[in-house]
């Protein structure tokens, strides 16, 4: 097996917002030779397929492709090499990545690696939706690529299942492709806010319970709300709203996973359990917004630069445990001594609606703080906890438990 052996200073895997921003920061920060790999035919990642103006500054919003263009330019201008159509297939040791590309096989060794491999939407199989296996069932990600990149039709009658930005993007793409959106099925009790142009029938507190059809999809059975079961005739079912970290490479490299996010476990400096290996972006929790991912990419790059300059590992790590209905908190590890998280904030997710929410932390039964949040906590909507909230934690103590509760007091000054 002839693999070309190469060495670079910093290797970034994934050319989406997180990876591009990391590469620009690394190259500009004097990391030396910086390389970005992606198996896609070009750089940009997920925003390439999101044409709506949901990116960039609120006053002059941009479409996805326009948003990533300056990220690509910045990485190139800083001197990073962007390598499309390169798939990372293994990691025999931390800092070493095996790749396949049309020019052959390589084994790349880097002094610092940033994993920015993104996320995928949970497809039908992983959602355990029963029924037959006809054509016509796909994730929103596949739909967007199919419609925007390959200009393929999207069927005539579509059902979209799930909520969040993916659902809106799917409705938009289906409309563009001339499909009739029969219903948006969401498990949440409230209908999402849909812009007037995208208004479609919404079934709340509902779920797709069965797929029917032999070769092509003929319809879906939807349960809820309550005991209601109805059949919707459709030829397309788009699934969205359940993000899963795409962390195969992290696992192959042997990085520890965060049991709550199922992405690589990272501390506030976005260090993984492997020396010299960092992670940033959607891979940390299975989703998120592009500017947040880019900020994490820069944050990871700054940590990588410190590592390249000879900075050591933290003396210890404290675990952050999210208590239900919190699903996870990321970064989920606190280095000792403390370092600020990306954008100066922790991100949390909640599995059900909590009105008048307040976050509480304790360590070994000792309260560490109490932080009211300004808005109702909703599933699929990230919560933020700013600053260095766990500074009072005992570096030699047990894990820090973070809970969410309800406060009868009015919310305090904006923290979330």
């Amino acid at each position: 097996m002839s693999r070309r052996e190469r060495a670079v200073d910093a290797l970034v895997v994934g050319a989406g917002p997180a990876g591009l921003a990391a590469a620009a920061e690394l190259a500009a920060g004097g990391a030396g030779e910086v390389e970005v790999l992606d198996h896609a035919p070009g750089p940009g990642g997920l925003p390439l397929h999101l044409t709506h103006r949901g990116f960039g500054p609120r006053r002059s919003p941009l479409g996805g492709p326009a948003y990533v263009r300056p990220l690509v330019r910045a990485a190139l201008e800083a001197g990073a090499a962007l390598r499309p159509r390169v798939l990372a297939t293994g990691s025999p040791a931390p800092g070493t990545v095996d790749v396949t590309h049309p020019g052959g096989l390589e084994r790349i060794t880097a002094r610092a690696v940033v994993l920015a491999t993104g996320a995928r939407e949970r497809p039908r199989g992983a959602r355990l939706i029963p029924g037959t296996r006809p054509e016509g069932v796909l994730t929103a990600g596949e739909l967007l690529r199919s419609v925007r990149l390959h200009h393929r039709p999207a069927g005539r009658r579509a059902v979209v299942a799930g909520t969040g930005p993916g659902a809106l993007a799917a409705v938009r793409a289906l409309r563009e492709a001339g499909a009739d959106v029969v219903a948006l099925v969401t498990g949440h009790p409230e209908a999402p806010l849909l812009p007037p142009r995208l208004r479609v029938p919404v079934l709340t507190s509902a779920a797709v319970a069965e797929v029917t059809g032999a070769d092509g999809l003929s319809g879906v059975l939807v349960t809820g709300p309550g005991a209601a079961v109805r059949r919707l005739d459709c030829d397309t079912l788009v699934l969205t709203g359940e993000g899963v970290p795409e962390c195969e490479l992290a696992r192959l490299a042997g990085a520890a996973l965060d049991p709550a996010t199922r992405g690589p476990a990272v501390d506030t400096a976005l260090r993984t359990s492997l020396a010299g290996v960092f992670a940033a972006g959607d891979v940390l929790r299975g989703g998120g917004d592009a500017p947040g991912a880019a900020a994490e990419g820069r944050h990871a790059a700054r940590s990588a630069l410190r590592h390249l300059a000879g900075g050591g590992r933290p003396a210890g790590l404290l675990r952050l445990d999210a208590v239900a209905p919190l699903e996870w908190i990321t970064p989920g590890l606190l280095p000792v001594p403390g370092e600020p998280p990306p954008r100066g904030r922790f991100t949390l997710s909640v599995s059900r609606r909590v009105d008048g929410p307040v976050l509480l932390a304790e360590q070994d039964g000792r309260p560490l703080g109490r932080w009211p949040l300004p808005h109702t906590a909703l599933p699929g909507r990230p919560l933020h906890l700013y600053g260095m909230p766990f500074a009072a934690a005992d570096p030699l103590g047990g894990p820090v438990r973070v809970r969410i509760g309800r406060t009868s007091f009015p919310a305090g000054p904006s923290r979330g």
Partner: protein
Amino acid sequence: MSVTRTGALPGTLHDVAVVGAGVVGTAIARELARHRLTVALLDAADDVGTGTSKANTAILHTGFDATPGTLEARLVREGHRRLSAYAAECGIPLEGVGALLVAWDEEQRAALPRLAAKAAAGGHREPRLIGPEALRRAEPHLAPGALAALEVPGESVICPWTTTLAYATQAVRAGTGLHLRCLVTGVTDRGDHHELATGRGPLRARYLVNAAGLHADTLDALLGHRDFTVAPRRGQLLVHDGAARPLVRHILLPVPTARSKGVLIAPTVHGKVLLGPTAEDVDDRRATGSTAEGIEALRAAGRRILPALGEEEVTAVYAGLRAATEHPDYRIRCHRDQRYAAVGSIRSTGLSASLAIAAYVAEALGDAGLDLGPARDLPPVVMPNIGEAAPRPYQRGDLIAADPAYGTVLCACERVTEGEIRDALHSTVPPATLAGLRRRTRARAGRCQGFSCGPAVRAAFDAYRGTRPGPGAAEAGER
């Protein structure tokens, strides 16, 4: 040498028509092709191996647990030997991982020595009992509480899709006409030959072989027989992502007891982990849907055996139907006066026994008057490797250097390259659908199910469909 999916069928008088292009039918066609006979292989579906042959547990059984003295016991045992050798010759993915029948309670533990004795009575002397410590060493991720196991070396996992395709490829190259989308609706005896009425017009053949699997009794009835009735048994299966593969080393078989049949957990040659099957008697021969109850039962059973499996993502849920009948054994009958052989009740061991069933049927046809003539060795085929045990094209610098298409990975999860997709569409038995492409290459069979590269795979499918291989092609693909 032809594969057709549309148009009228050849008007020539065939020596043999084989109805049903599953793993058994393709094996029979391949065996007959060794004898310079003109053979037509018909199937109602648009591809080979789309019934029971595509949705099973993908295990090559030794037959250690078959009832000694039955035809099934004999043919599975012989089929295991034949297919093991054939797989090595053709590059069919196969891993001889061995099986462990794990006992979780006293009743099951007490059954193990009886199973070992039954295996020995059938000539299988390899199975041996192992204690809890050896079992723990063999399978470190097993749930606590396993008492003992019967270890069965020789039980293997195999690629059922490549197996069927290899048979079909060899048969077609040796002259068999493979006619798909060709449902047989009637059979008329014309004295010295059968005239088959099909959705694509008539086909004439002197001898007829019924390998119609789930529909074998329907065809049998067209010949005037009621020898068996297919009672489909549905098996639902969950496939787990490759991340789960390190959790299990052997095929973990349940110990059959009076109370329950249990489910198995098995690695697959594609680097995934299979959990199942359920066993449900259903009326509808097309009821290949999964159910919420079935999925939940499998998940619960899986967690009891291998707790960490529940933490891993499922990539696919599917259900297959086994062609069980009222008979506890294979039902292979040759009606000399009708020049007709029926291959019924193959149930769940058709893959393992396929080559032995084929030899048995050919011999029976000879006994019934078909002049087989001398057999010849067919030119060997080398199938594209889609298994994890041997290097795949994305891992082969030599192939990529010769053709960069083998370095262009289109399906990242499963590491499927553009070169492999092209080769599949240029192959002897090309796919007609994306599902067929998946069975040949694994494209879109991974954890993202097309989220990331689905449209690119579809574009490649469309681009290479109906094109012809260029000069110098087929170097890395099948040969």
